[in-house]
C-alpha cells in the first residue's frame, strides 16, 4: 500500500513548496524578509519530517508485524525502521541553521526581501531530497526486512542497500548547509 502512496506524498511536498513560493511571490513585500526566511526553515523541517514520518511509519508497521511473528528479529528490524528517520533530522538541522543565521537566538534581525529569499532557496535542496529519499529509502527498508525474515544471518546486508538512497539526502543536506553558511549574505 505504501508503495502506491509515494507519489501522493511527493505531490503534497510539491504543494507545500509551490504554495510557499507563490505566497512569497505575491505577499513577499507585505510579509518581509524574516517571514520568507522562516518559511524556508519551516519547509526544510516539514518536508524532511513528512518523508520520515511516512517511511518510518510504514517500516514500523511491517517491523511490528514481523516481531509478532518472531520476536527474535526485533533487534535486527529496529535499525531498518530507524534508517529513513534521518531525513527528518537533516531537515530539522537545516531549519535550525537557518534560524541561527537569521539571528533568531541572538535578539533577531531585520532581513531584506532579497535576504529572505536567499535563506528560503538555501533550504530547498535539503527539503526536496529529504522528502523523496526518505520515501524511497522506506521502500528499500521494507524489502530489506524480507532479508531479515528469510536469512537473519545476512541482515547486515539489508542495512547497506537503503544507505545508497540516503546518499542524496546527505548531499542535499551538505548543499543546503554550505549555502546557508557561505552563500547567504546577511
Amino acid at each position, binding site marked *: 500500500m505504501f508503495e502506491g502512496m509515494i507519489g501522493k506524498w511527493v505531490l503534497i511536498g510539491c504543494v507545500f513548496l509551490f504554495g510557499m513560493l507563490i505566497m512569497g511571490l505575491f505577499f513577499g513585500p507585505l510579509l518581509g524578509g524574516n517571514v520568507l526566511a522562516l518559511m524556508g526553515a519551516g519547509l526544510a523541517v516539514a518536508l524532511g519530517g513528512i518523508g520520515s514520518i511516512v517511511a518510518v511509519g510504514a517500516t514500523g508497521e511491517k517491523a511490528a508485524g514481523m516481531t509478532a511473528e518472531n520476536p527474535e528479529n526485533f*533487534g535486527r528490524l529496529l535499525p531498518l525502521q530507524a534508517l529513513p528517520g*534521518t531525513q527528518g533530522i537533516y531537515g530539522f*538541522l537545516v531549519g535550525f541553521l537557518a534560524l541561527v543565521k537569521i539571528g533568531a537566538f541572538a535578539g533577531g534581525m531585520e532581513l531584506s526581501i532579497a535576504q529572505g529569499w536567499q535563506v528560503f532557496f538555501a533550504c530547498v535542496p535539503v527539503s526536496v531530497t529529504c522528502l523523496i529519499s526518505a520515501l524511497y529509502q522506506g521502500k528499500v527498508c521494507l524489502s530489506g526486512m524480507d532479508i531479515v525474515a528469510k536469512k537473519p544471518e545476512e541482515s547486515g546486508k539489508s542495512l547497506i542497500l537503503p544507505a545508497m538512497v540516503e546518499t542524496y539526502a546527505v548531499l542535499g543536506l551538505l548543499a543546503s548547509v554550505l549555502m546557508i553558511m557561505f552563500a547567504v549574505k546577511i
Partner: protein
Amino acid sequence: MAVAKMRKVTIFAYEELGESIFETLRDLEVLHVSKSESYDLSEYKDEEETEVDEAKYNEKLSQLSVIKSYFERYTTIKKSFIDMFTGAKPQMSYEDFQRVIASYDVSEIFSKVQLHEKRLREIDKETEQLKQRMEILTPWVDLDIPIPEIRPTRACDMQLAVVPSNSLNQVSKDDPLELVHHRVIWQEHGNSGVWLVALLDQEPSLSAVVSALGGVTVNLGREAAEYSGTGLVRDVLENIDKALTDLSGEREAILAEDAEMAQNLMDILALIDYYLDKRNLFEIHQEVAKTRFTLVIEGYAREKEIDKLRKGLSVYKDIEIVDEEPGQDDDVPVLLENNALVRPFEFVTNIYGYPQYHEMDPTPFLAPFFWVFFAMCLGDAVYGVILSIFSIVFLRTQKLEDDKLIKLLGYCGVSTVFAGALMGSWLGDLPKTFLEGTAFERFASRIAILDPVNDPITLLVVSLGLGILHIWVGVIVKMIGTIRTGAVVDGILDHGSWVVFLPGLIFWAVSQMGMIKSSIPLYIMIAGAVGIMWSGARSQKNILMKPISAIGGFYSILSYFSDTLSYARILALGLASAIIGVVVNMVCALIVDMVPGVGWVFVPVILIVGHLFNLLINALGSFIHSGRLQYVEFFSKFFEGGGTPFRPLRRVRKNVWVVE
C-alpha cells in the same frame, strides 16, 4: 594472506560407523563438509531406510513444536531487552542436556498435552452451556412445582409462559380468560413469568391464550433433564452450580499441572535442538557419497586443525583420512584469520561477503579507513568515550556468540575520541556553553584544530583527501593482487600506472594552485599518463585504433572523480552530529534562561536524552555510511568476493546454548 589455509580432507570409513563418525565430527567442530563431487556412488546407494528415519525426526520435531507453543501459554523464557539485540540464548549445562535427552518421553508428553488441550476446550464449552441454562432457570427459582410435572394431565393443560406484565391484568378481568388459572412466578422488565393451568378441552386453548396475550410458552424440560433429582428449579440450579464448581476445579487442576509441566520449557527447547541436530547430521549423512558398506566424507579443514581432526577420529580403527592441498577448481570455504586488532573489522567485510579462497582478505586494508571514517562521521569525543565504555561493559557482562560488532564499536569509540577532540566537540559545544573559562574549556579549544561548523571547507578537503587516499590504496591492492596471480605486466601497466598517475595529478593540481613550488608532480603525472596510454593501446589489436584506445584509457578518471566526491558525506555526517549536539545544548541554555532557578533541574534530563538520541542515530548513520564507502568506492577497485564461508559441522544451537 589473511584467508586461512585449508586442506581438502577425504575420510573413508565403514557405513555402519557413519552416525557415530558424524557425531564425533560435530563435537570436534573442525570439518566443513562439502557436497561430494569426486565420488559418484549413487548407483550403489541403499534407499530403503532413509525416508523412515527422516520422518521419525520430523514427527518428533512437530510434536515438540506443539508442546512448545502449548507450554509458552504458561511460561516464557525470560529475555532481557539487551538479549533481544544480541540474540543471546539461554544456557544449559552439558549434564542437564544429557539428562533431558535420556529422560524425556516426547510422545508421552505430547499425548498428555493433546489430552489436556482437548479437555480444556470441552470444559469451556460445557461451562458455557451450563451458564446459559442457569440464566434461563434462575428467574423460575420460586416455582415450587417439579419441572417434570409441568405437562398436560388427563384433564388439564399446564404450562409456563412469559407474557407482558400489563396484559396479565386482563386475564383476571376479561371474561373468556377467566377459565385460566395463573400464578405469577416472577416479574421483571415489564415481563412476567407465569404458571398457567386450564382445562384441556376448553376453548380457546391454553396456547392460544398465551399468544393472545402476546407472550410465549416456555419449556424448561431440556434445561432440567440432566439434573433431575427432585425436579424443583431450585434443586436443579443447585445441581448446575455444583457441576460448574466441579468443572472449574478440574480446569484449575489441569492448569496447575500444565503450569508445572511448562516449567520444563527449557528442556523442550533443548530437545528441539537435539532433534534438529539429529536431523541435520542425518541429512548430511545422506548427502555424502556412500555404498551399502562404505562411506566417503569430503570436506575442508584448516591446516592448523588437521591434527585435531586426526586425533579426534583416531578412536575409529578402520578409517582412512586423506588430507591434501585443494586444487584450483575446488570451491574452498573461506575463513578470515586476522590479528586481534583487525579481527573486529571482519564484521564489515562479512556484511558484504567473503573473499574467494585465492583472493586477498580486504579486512586489513579497510580497517584503518573504516576506523577513521566512522570517527569523523560521529566526531564527538564524549560519544567516543561512551561507545568504548559501552563496549567494554557489554563484553564483560554479556556472553556473545559473535563479539566482533561490539569490539568494533569499542575500537571506533577510541578513534571517535581523537576525532572529537580534534574537532573540539565534547557533547557538542558543551564546554563553551556551560564551562566557559574553565581549564577544561581552554584545553579543549587548544587541541581543536578543525571546526566543522564554522570552517567546513577544511574538513571537506580532509574528507576528500582521505577519499583519494582510500581509492589509491584500493588500486594498489588491485595491482598487488594482479601481480600475485602471476600477471606481472598486467598488474604494473594496468593498475600501476594509475597508482603513479593519481598522486601525480593531485599534487600537480595543488602545485597549480601555488601551494607547492615544484615540477616533480608534473613528471610523475606524465609518467603515469604514459603508462595508462600504453596499457590502453596494448589491449587494442588494430594499429589504427591504438591511439584512440590509449586516450580511452583515461575514461576511468571520471569514475575516480565521482567516487572521490562521495566522500563528502563524511563532512555532512560530521556536521549533522555536531550541530544536533549544539542544538541539544542550546535548548538547555534556553531552558535555564527562560525558567530562572528551576531551569537547571531539566538540564540533566535534556542533556542525557538529547545526546543519547544523537549518539544512537548518528552512530547508526556513521556505521552504515563508512561501510558504504568500503563496499562501493573501495571494494569496486579490487575485490570480487563471493566466497563460501567456512562453516564447520557443529551442534545445532537454535534455542539453547549447551555449555560443557
